[in-house]
């Protein structure tokens, strides 16, 4: 094995371009894909669900004969949401496991950090979580971003709220990172198109658990529309504080926390909370169909862990597999990238059809504003 490595290294020295054979990860009867995900710690909530989505897509394609007769397999690396480990994991997947393509690059900050490495390698990579503009503006040849930016989602949510609740006082609580910044940008953009009167705005440090003082200020400022820009726990804390203080503003949250568990944890106070997303709610017709598909290929325990990230993971992987399928025997990076770029839109039913273009590496999926229904622990589109 060591000898092989040494030989490989020697070839590399003589012909540097040959390091990553374009068809690495592809054998006669198998194709290997890889991904980096937070599978430990609190962010595992999204990592594990996403991973299920990818595996669902693979199971489906394998059940239908695989790609050109080859079964597709997945290697998942855990980065625990730690940037340095994301990059190490990418290097390992490409260098040691020799995967053909990457189905995820962990969260937004992690993907951003890994971008130069992934770009340098040239391996086709999907980014279905945390689609930040720097990932696709300017477009990177081999990096495909599926979904919608927080900025655009926020813009549409804000416009909807401004229209539905005109002339109200707004409060905004955001996280002190990229995510919060994107939301702020979206809100500012919406502010150009509609009348938004922000009376209270603050940033909290990530990991904060106690939101008593923030919500007191919300109350003090007479906020009527509150943008709760937390990820998951923070939103729960904010809504519970509002309940405690006896205030009842219109509360809007964002998709990372759009999971039934959040509604359950908040309790009845969660009824009527707004959210926005680019995948369908699980309780919709399309969502139920998706669950049915999931229960066909996943275990019962796993189906319980399905959430919106399963849909994004599934959809982006289906798009990737589609392109690979279209390459047929010419299963190379170049071909896959070319097909991803030029093929027709891929529709998985759980989000708007995924389509890229020559100068576009962003699916720019359509978002829907929705509202929580505590009785069914679900979200219902509002229009």
């Amino acid at each position: 094995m060591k000898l092989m490595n040494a030989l490989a290294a020697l070839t590399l020295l003589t012909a540097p371009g040959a390091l990553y054979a374009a068809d690495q990860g592809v054998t006669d009867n198998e194709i290997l894909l890889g991904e980096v995900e937070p599978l430990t710690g609190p962010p595992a909530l999204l990592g594990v669900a996403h991973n299920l989505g990818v595996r669902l897509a693979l199971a489906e394609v394998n059940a239908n004969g695989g790609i050109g007769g080859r079964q597709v397999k997945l290697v998942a690396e855990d980065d625990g949401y730690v940037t340095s480990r994301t990059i190490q994991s990418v290097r390992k997947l490409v260098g040691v496991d020799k995967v053909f393509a990457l189905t995820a690059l962990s969260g937004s900050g992690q993907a951003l950090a890994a971008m130069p490495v992934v770009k340098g390698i040239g391996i086709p990579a999907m980014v279905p979580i945390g689609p930040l503009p720097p990932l696709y503006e300017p477009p990177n040849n081999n990096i495909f971003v599926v979904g919608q930016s927080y900025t655009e989602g926020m813009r549409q949510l804000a416009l909807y709220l401004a229209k539905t609740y005109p002339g109200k006082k707004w409060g905004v609580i955001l996280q002190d990172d990229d995510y919060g910044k994107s939301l702020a940008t979206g809100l500012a953009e919406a502010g150009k198109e509609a009348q938004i009167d922000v009376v209270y705005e603050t940033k909290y440090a990530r990991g904060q658990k106690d939101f008593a003082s923030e919500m007191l200020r919300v109350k003090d400022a007479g906020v009527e529309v509150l943008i709760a820009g937390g990820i998951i726990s923070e939103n729960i804390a904010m809504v519970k504080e509002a309940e405690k203080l006896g205030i009842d503003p219109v509360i809007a949250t964002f998709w990372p926390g759009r999971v039934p568990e959040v509604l359950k944890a908040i309790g009845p106070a969660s009824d009527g909370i707004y959210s926005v997303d680019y995948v369908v709610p699980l309780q919709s017709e399309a969502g139920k169909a998706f669950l049915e598909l999931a229960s066909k290929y996943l275990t019962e325990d796993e189906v319980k862990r399905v959430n919106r990230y399963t849909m994004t993971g599934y959809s982006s992987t289906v798009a990737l597999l589609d392109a690979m399928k279209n390459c047929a025997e010419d299963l190379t990076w170049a071909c896959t990238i070319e097909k991803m770029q030029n093929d027709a839109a891929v529709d998985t039913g759980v989000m708007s059809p995924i389509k890229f273009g020559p100068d576009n590496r962003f699916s720019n999926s359509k978002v829907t504003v929705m509202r929580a229904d505590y009785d069914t622990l679900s979200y219902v589109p509002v229009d």
Partner: protein
Amino acid sequence: MRSGYYKETIARHVDLTDALSQRVWIAIALAALALAPLYFDYYGLSLITLMAITAVGAMGLNVLTGWTGLISLGQTAFMVLGAYSYAISTESWGWPPLAGLALAGIVPALASVVVGIPSLRLTGLYLAITTMASAFIVNHLVLEFDGLTNGSSGIFVNRPTILGFAFDTDQKFYYLCIGVALLTVLACLNLRRSRIGRALVAIRDNDNAARVMGIDLRSYKIYAFMTSSFIVGISGALYGIFLSFVTVDGFPFLLAIEALAILIVGGIGSIAGAILGAIFLVGLPEVTSMIFSLLGDGAQGLLSTSAHEIKGLLYGLVIILFLRLQPHGLMGLWQDARRVWTLWPLRY
């Protein structure tokens, strides 16, 4: 069996080593490091690079915690400052990377004075928690001054070109890191055997006696902070280059704890211990993964649900078992091994 080398002059006593066998071993180690890119794949090489960077940081912490006995949980703050100093100076201001690297040492060294002065009267865990506090405060400041630091978005960092030599590939960057690590080893060894190193250790062992010997406790504690932070800052810059991206997220609090773990696992106060500890702790997750992949497809199936938690569990367990069974750290293990080796087959 080696029977020792007689020293004929006092000057020989002052040398780092005059033993032929030791020199041979050093030469072999250097050659192995130089040839490593031939034997390791892309990933393996980046792992060694990471070990080298970590070892630099650990040696830096060792100056403060190992030698001077000042426990710090806040050296990540200086890694952050080093990384940002480098990133801002080279990427935003267009400084040459060498100057950026120098700044990556100098800025943390100066900042450490600010942390060090209030800490002069503190000892033990009080100091540990206070340094931890400064780490949190530094992170907060970095996010606050987003005009300079680009806030939470971070700064992309390119591979440097130093003295006309471009460290643009992973292999070349590997050599850079190994070079810096060797330089650090040498500097630390020299420092340790100088009046300054002795003064720091004297402060650790008995501060009152040290003062009576004419050692200015305040200055030397600040020296220790500065030297440590200088080295740690450099490792921060290298780490930033390694990640090609600098954000505060890249330097979580966990890193500070791991750094301390490296020293303890390696054998506190020893330079070789810091290096061995770095290799051990950076390699540990790889080894646990390997064990998992050896378990085959059954374990692979678990992958998305619980295997990673088990991995975290294993990681904690290895550290605990290590401390339990080998309390003197890897250096202790090494010395035991050497004793067995030199005495073999004549035990007792």
